[in-house]
């Protein structure tokens, strides 16, 4: 296949991007089989363009037994027939690029499905053979004892006995997801082939799943090992030498100092998710105290100029509480998941709106933080209309229900018989599709959807949000979070009230004396800054984005 060029000319496009995470399966069904597909997704691309997002991140759509919603891959080079064909994918890619949208897909390389031909061959191959060595085997389950179990709800060990191979195989996730052996150069070559296949087709970015766990060594936690970084550098080298304007995003659920090495010296990942920030946003909101946020940002090391953090409020997984202390985790459970059904592994499986009790001001406040913190925001599908969840569905499926397009049958997601849907639509009076759907919100200028659209458009007008520095102001009132964003002459002061009550705050802006704050949403001038403390009053969960303009005209 001929190599297609990147769809964007800006090598740092991801620093200004607004990423929208979606599941093909959940977005739109075009052939009435109850499952979303690529032709359906193409039908809805105008909606995404109109929303203002600039990059679509697709959850895995490859052939898979679907025991882990597609993260158990049995064929890296194809499309699951449920979602369409490889040609459908190509058409989708073209349609996205025609609209100026970039596309990011998953590169799930830590493990495969146990149904993958590689694993099927490995378990039957003789010990020490190249096929066998595609995976990690052991005669006992005692190796790598210091590695933690990630899926604590379902797995008791990172080793599982295979009766065919007559050995244990290693898996950091579900037992049906054996880990690939990255000490085997052939594995690395095969992964590079997979990478090239999709990049040649024109895919703009790859989210590398479960990066910290690629390599294991006895006596270590088997996370973030130097050998893992060597592999990442190799992958990055392949991209840099063969492709332009692509991006590699690391999913590394680690402390910021442990994520920092994944940027290398600008020779590993372009982007990495900032996992620890996300639960702390919710903590700060509930505790009405900015400290969790400022504290984690203070612990976040600087990254190379061409790199970027990926920020998010929610995603397809549980709201992970891996990177918090035990006390913090306990508090979060009490604060956000009183019902134990809402908890899974070390996290909470709820969507954004239910987490904050469907409070519109809280939703807006959290999104204002997401859109103004230093990094690239990642929106989870449905959160732009405040979709609810279904905690009665297993695993993380409660946050992966069909997109709610309108009040018609099946929320406009599918014309199939309702029982045929891959999962039921949300249908209660508060969260149901008749109450919360795109069509209704498009016709309501006061809706959350309109608000999100306007905020995204406003953010895109100012490069400071994606590329600028951040400096926290520390007013005496800890319920108020205030920070300055700066980039190339742009200065924006963001002030957020984390409290459910109105709050006053005095800000020391004396070094900005003479600047005129202009509220950005309504373009209203505020009194000029002088040497005195700058007093603001914020409504419950209120926030300001204030552009600091100089008094003299251009």
């Amino acid at each position: 296949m001929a190599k297609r060029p990147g769809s964007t000319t800006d090598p740092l496009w991801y620093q200004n991007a607004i990423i929208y995470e979606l599941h093909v399966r959940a977005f739109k069904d075009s052939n009435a089989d109850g499952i979303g597909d690529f032709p359906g997704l193409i039908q809805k691309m105008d909606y995404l363009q109109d929303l203002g997002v600039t990059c679509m991140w697709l959850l895995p759509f490859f052939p898979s037994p679907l025991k882990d919603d597609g993260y158990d891959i049995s064929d890296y080079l194809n499309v699951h027939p449920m979602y369409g064909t490889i040609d459908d994918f190509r058409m989708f890619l073209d349609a996205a690029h025609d609209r100026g949208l970039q596309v990011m897909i998953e590169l799930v390389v830590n493990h495969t499905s146990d149904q993958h031909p590689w694993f099927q061959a490995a378990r039957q191959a003789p010990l020490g053979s190249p096929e066998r060595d595609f995976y990690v085997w052991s005669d006992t389950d005692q190796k790598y004892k210091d590695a933690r179990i990630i899926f604590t709800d379902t797995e008791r060990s990172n080793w599982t006995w295979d009766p065919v191979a007559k050995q244990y195989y290693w898996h950091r996730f579900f037992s049906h997801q054996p880990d690939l052996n990255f000490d085997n150069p052939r594995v690395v070559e095969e992964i590079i082939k997979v990478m090239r296949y999709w990049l040649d087709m024109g895919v703009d970015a790859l989210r590398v799943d479960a990066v910290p766990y690629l390599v294991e060594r006895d006596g270590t936690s088997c996370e973030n090992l130097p050998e893992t970084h060597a592999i990442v550098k190799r992958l990055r080298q392949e991209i840099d030498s063969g492709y332009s304007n692509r991006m590699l995003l690391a999913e590394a659920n680690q402390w910021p100092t442990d994520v920092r090495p994944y940027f290398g010296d600008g020779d590993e990942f372009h982007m990495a998710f900032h996992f620890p920030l996300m639960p702390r946003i919710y903590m700060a909101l509930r505790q009405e105290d900015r400290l969790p946020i400022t504290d984690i940002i203070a612990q976040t090391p600087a990254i190379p100029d061409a790199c970027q953090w990926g920020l998010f409020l929610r995603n397809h997984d549980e709201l992970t509480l891996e990177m918090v202390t035990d006390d913090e985790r306990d508090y979060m459970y009490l604060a956000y998941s009183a019902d134990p059904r809402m908890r899974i592994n070390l996290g909470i499986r709820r969507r954004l709106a239910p987490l904050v009790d469907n409070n519109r001001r809280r939703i807006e406040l959290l999104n204002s933080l997401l859109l103004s913190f230093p990094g690239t925001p990642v929106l989870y599908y449905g959160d732009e209309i405040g979709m609810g969840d279904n905690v009665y569905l297993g695993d993380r499926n409660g946050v992966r229900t069909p997109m709610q397009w309108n009040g018609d049958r099946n929320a406009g997601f599918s014309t199939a018989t309702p029982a045929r849907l891959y999962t039921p639509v949300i249908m209660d009076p508060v969260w149901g599709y008749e109450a919360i759907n795109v069509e209704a919100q498009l016709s309501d200028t006061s809706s959350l959807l309109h608000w999100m659209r306007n905020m995204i458009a406003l953010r895109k007008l100012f490069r400071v949000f994606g590329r600028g520095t951040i400096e926290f102001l520390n007013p005496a009132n800890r319920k108020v979070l205030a920070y300055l964003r700066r980039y190339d002459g742009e200065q924006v002061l963001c002030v957020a009230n984390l409290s459910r009550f109105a709050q006053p705050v005095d800000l020391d802006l004396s070094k900005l004396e003479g600047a005129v704050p202009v509220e950005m949403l309504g373009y209203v001038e505020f009194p000029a800054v002088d040497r005195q403390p700058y007093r603001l009053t914020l409504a419950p969960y209120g926030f300001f984005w204030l552009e600091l303009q100089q008094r003299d005209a251009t």
Partner: protein
Amino acid sequence: MEVDAIPQQTQEQPAQIDSADLVVGILADLGQDGVLKVCEGFLNLSGSHRIVVLQRDPVGDPAVANSQSAPEGSSLSFLPWSAAGPDPLAAPTQTISIACQSLFAMTDKLGARACCFVASEMENATPQWVCQLLQPLVESDFDLVAPYYAPRMFQGLLNSSIIYPLTRCLYGKRIHNPFGPDVGVSRRLAAKILGANRSNNGGSNQTHPLSLLAPIAACDNLQLCQVHVGARAYPPTDWTNMSSLLAQVLGPIFIEMERSAACWQRTRGSVSVPVHGECQDPSQETSGLDLNRMAETFRLGIRDLQEIWSLVLPPATLFELRKLSRSTADLVNMPDELWARIVYDFALAHRLQTINRDHLLRSMTPLYLAWIVSYARELETAGPARVEQRIEHLALAYEAAKPYLISRWRWPDRFNP
């Protein structure tokens, strides 16, 4: 290189013309003598230059033209220019758009330093007027040389009422005729326009190269100046087709507003742009406008277009318009502040695609005519010396209302006063 933008006939030229220093595109019907006069003007350019002249009907004997007009060491080549494009019945704005596009593409292809577009006839023109558009490009490295036509009381009204004040307010540069059409453009700017046109048209947005000149030059901090070129001979206005003209002219301007929002929303106030040459005083004119008919059209608009305007204009504006329509038969006095807000609201509605864009812009016609009535009545008694002052007042009103535009642009909530 934008090969598609260069008409086939122009591409099939003698292989020896593969480079040039300057390209001059003459779309205006100047006649042979007129073209030769223009070429005589090139004698004033310092230095030697290889100049390629594109024109609809080439001068009879290029060799003759060469020997008579070219400065020593320079050369002049003439190429026929099918600048009208494939449709001979295309509207003038469309013709100019296609011609500009092909001129910029040719400039890029030939590696020329700069180009100049001539679309107008001038009253009492001197041979130097075209050269004046080239001189700043050649001698002082400017990127855009815009024409500063002698002010006319009742000509160029679309420019006076919308194009100039809007462009000035948005991009902060006081370019009196930002839409030309007679302009000098550096290769650097021409290349940027070709690039912007490509990306806009990839998204099926109808843009006009001339509508991109001032925005791109201002936003990219390129060097701009203006040149007094004398009194333009404006083509007669087809008042029966005013709505088409509005749609053709304003559409590209509003599309460019969308594209460059991040730039103009940060621009505050405006600054003068250097002007070269000698100013010509405006002369007394009679309007020749049927103001009664225009006022009547406005009143009909109030009656028949209320439904459309209510999707675009806030209640306060609609209320003021209603009051205006009740004034005596021929007197419509539209305040500048009101007019500026109307233009901004239409720009916003264009962006939001509240209704079909072409339909939207055409519906603006009665409002535009109301402005003309208001303006003409004022100047009929005031006299020609007041023209520039009057337009300045309007431009300041646009600037004062810019916060209104920005706030509505960022939050297009219909719950407006």
